[in-house]
C-alpha cells in the first residue's frame, strides 16, 4: 500500500511528456475479490484472488472534451481455498470472459479516471475433500461488473503509453447450481447415481484490481 501511494505521488510530480493518442490497449494484472455471499461463506473464508487479461479499443466517439469511450473485452481467472466445518477442505476455481465498455476522463496527461461496465459468463468449480472422499462440480454463471478506476501513466507518447490502473468495483453473479460428485472409474461399469444439489454458489463481491496497461 505504501508502494502504491509512492507511485501515485511520483506520477503526480512527473515531468512533462508529449500527449497520448493510442487506439488500442492491452492490460494484464491481478485482482482480489471479497467473497461474502452466504454461499461463498459456506465454503471459504478466503478472497478470490487471480489475474486478468484485457484488450480494448478506443471508439473515438468524441462525446465530450477529454472523455474517451473504449470497448473492452477480457479474460479473468481466480481461485480460493477454505475449510468446511473444520473437517473438510474446499477449493474454488473460476474463469470468465467479459465484454463491456469503459469511459475514461483525462484529468492530466498522466492521470485519468474511468468507469467501466462488463458482462459475461464465468465458469465456477467447487471441490470438497472429506474423509478420503473428493467430490467436485462445475457450472457456468453470469456476471456483471461495475468499477471505477484510476490510470497513472508512467510513459505517455503519441504512439505508445505505459502505466498502471487501479480498479475498485463490484461483481454481481448469478448463482451456479452445483452437485459435487465423486469422479468415477472410467475403466469400470458403474451404477447410475442420483446427485443431490449442494445449492447455488454465488461468487459475487467487491473487488480491487491492479493492472499494467499499455496503449498503442
Amino acid at each position: 500500500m505504501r508502494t502504491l501511494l509512492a507511485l501515485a505521488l511520483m506520477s503526480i510530480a512527473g515531468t512533462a511528456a508529449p500527449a497520448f493518442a493510442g487506439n488500442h490497449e492491452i492490460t494484464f494484472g491481478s485482482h482480489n475479490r471479497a467473497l461474502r455471499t452466504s454461499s461463498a461463506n459456506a465454503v471459504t473464508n478466503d478472497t478470490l484472488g487471480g489475474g486478468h487479461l484485457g484488450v480494448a479499443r478506443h471508439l473515438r466517439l468524441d462525446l465530450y472534451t477529454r472523455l474517451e469511450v473504449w470497448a473492452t473485452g477480457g479474460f479473468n481467472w481466480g481461485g480460493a481455498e477454505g475449510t468446511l466445518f473444520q473437517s473438510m477442505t474446499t477449493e474454488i476455481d473460476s474463469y470468465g470472459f467479459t465484454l463491456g465498455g469503459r469511459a475514461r476522463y483525462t484529468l492530466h496527461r498522466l492521470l485519468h479516471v474511468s468507469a467501466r461496465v462488463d458482462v459475461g459468463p464465468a465458469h465456477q468449480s467447487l471441490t470438497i475433500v472429506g474423509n478420503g472422499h473428493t467430490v467436485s462440480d462445475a457450472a457456468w454463471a453470469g456476471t456483471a461488473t461495475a468499477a471505477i478506476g484510476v490510470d497513472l501513466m508512467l510513459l505517455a507518447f503519441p504512439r505508445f503509453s505505459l502505466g498502471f490502473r487501479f480498479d475498485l468495483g463490484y461483481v454481481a453473479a448469478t448463482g451456479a447450481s452445483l452437485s459435487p460428485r465423486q469422479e468415477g472409474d472410467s475403466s469400470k461399469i458403474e451404477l447410475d447415481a442420483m446427485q443431490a444439489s449442494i445449492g447455488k454458489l454465488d461468487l459475487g463481491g467487491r473487488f480491487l484490481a491492479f493492472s499494467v496497461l499499455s496503449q498503442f
Partner: protein
Amino acid sequence: MRLLYLACALSLSTTACAWNDERPIVWERQRSVLGPISLKTQIAYVDSALDRVTLLDLENDTPRITTKNIGRNAMHVVPSHDRHQLFVITRGEEAIHHGQIDQEAMFWALDTNNMQADAIAYTIGSPFDRIAVAPDNTIAIAYFSAAGPDAQGFFRNPNELAVIDLTRPPGDDNPVLKTIRSFGSVPEGISLSPPMIVPGTGTARTFGFILSANNLTVLDVSNPTRREISIRLDLGGAPVIPREVVFAPNTASAYVRSDNARDVLQVLLQSAPATMDNGNDYRPQLAELGAGGGPTDIAVYDDATGKRYILAATPNTSEVVVIDADTAQFRSVPVSDPIDRILLFPTGGTEPPHKALFASIGAKMKRVHVLDLEHINDPLTQASIRRIDLDQAIRDVVPVPERELAMLVHDDNRTVLGLLDMETESTSPLLGVGKLDSYDFSPDGSYLIGATPNVSRVGFVALDNLHPTDFRLDDAPFRVLSTANAKIFVDHGDPLGHATIIPSPSASREEATVLAGFLTINLLDSEP
C-alpha cells in the same frame, strides 16, 4: 488538483487494506453426523453442524430427500420403538462469539410419517445425553449417561432427568425436570414400562425404573411431580448393579436382573393410600424368587394364551429358571454350563416362542443348549433340554428375525460364522472373506446381509438354502442396513452423503441406485 490525486491514492490504499471480513462462525463449527438410523422405510442422519435431520425415504423407487431443522449441536438420537418417530437431543449454544446464539438444550421429536410437520422442541435445559422411550411412545425421559454432564456450565447434577410427555405440546409443565435420590451413585440406565394398572388404582400408567449401582428407583412418570421411591439393593459386599428389567404388565410387576445380586428381584407394585398431597398411591413390594443364584441373563415371552414367562440363567446354581410372571412360581432346569445368554425362537412376529437357546459366551464354550417351552409350566411335564455340540467356541449368538435360526459367531473378527437351525437343531458353517463389520437381516429373515470396508461388495446368504451371493459396489461400504420394505441401504461413510440402495437381495446392478450428496443438500442456499 494535487490534493485530489492524493485523496484518490489514499482512498484506494485504505480500501485495499479493509478487505477481509470475518466469515460467519457457524461454518467453523465442529461437525459430527449421527447415523444412519433405520426407521420403517426411511433412513435418518442427524447433522450437528447444519442443525438438521436428513431423511431418505426409500418407500418408492426414487429416493426422496427431506430435511427438518432442529437445534444447535445434536448429541444423541434414538428412534421410537415402532420406528415412526425420531428423538434427538441438542446441546444448544451459548452466544460467546459474534454469530452464535443463545439456545438451551432441547429434546426434539420428529414424526417421520408426516413430512410437512416440523420437529417439536421440548426445552430440557440440561445437556442430557441419553434417552429412554416408553414402549407405547407416549413418554420419554432424557438423562445423563454414566459419564455425566460435560465440562461446560457452572454446576453439574448427574442425577437430574427430564420427563417429557410426548402426547402434549411443550409447555411450562412439559417437560418436568426432576432430580432423583442418588445415595452416591448415578443412573446407569432407565427402563420404562408399558402401561400398567396398579390393582386398585384404576388408570394405566407408565413407570420408570432407574438403574444405578446399589439402587433401583421407581418413578411414576405419568405423574412425574410425585416423589420417586428408592430401593436399596446392596448387600454390603460387591456393588449390586441392576442391568435389565422385564415387565409383567398384567400383574403390575417387574423382574430385575443385577450383577452381583444373589437372586432375581421381583418388584410388585401394589396400591397404597397417598400419605400427602400429590403423593404416590402405590408401593413396591419386593421379593427374591428364591432361585438361589444371581442371574446373568433374562428373557421374557408371552405364550399362546397370553401368559407371561421369564427365563433367567443362574450359573451359580447351574440352572435355568422359568418364572410364571403372574404368580412368581418358578421351575428350575439344570444346565451344567455357565449360561450368560438366552435367546427365544421364533423372535419378532406374532407367533409366540416355543424354544429357548442357552449359550455360554463369556466361557467360550463349544456347545449350546435348547429348551422346549411348550408345556413348560406343566410340572408333570419333564423339561426337555438338549445339548448341541459345535466345532468351535462360541463368541456371539444373533437371532434371525421371524425365523427359527440363529447366527453363531466363532471368532472376534466375525469371519468364522455358523447358522444354527432351531428346527433341526443342526449347524452349518459360513465363511466370510473379511471381518463382518456390519450386517443385518432382511425383515422376513430370509437373508443375511453383510459388509466389510475392505471389500467393495455386499454379501447375501439366503437362509433357506444357505446359498451365498454378492453384489458389487462402486465404493467401499461402511455400514449396511435393511429397511422394512426389504431394501438394502449401504452407507459409504462419506461426510457429504453417499449410499447405494439395492431394491432387494436378488436385485441386479441395473436395478440399484447410488445416492450422493444428500447430507449437504442445499447447503449453500441457507446458513444454519
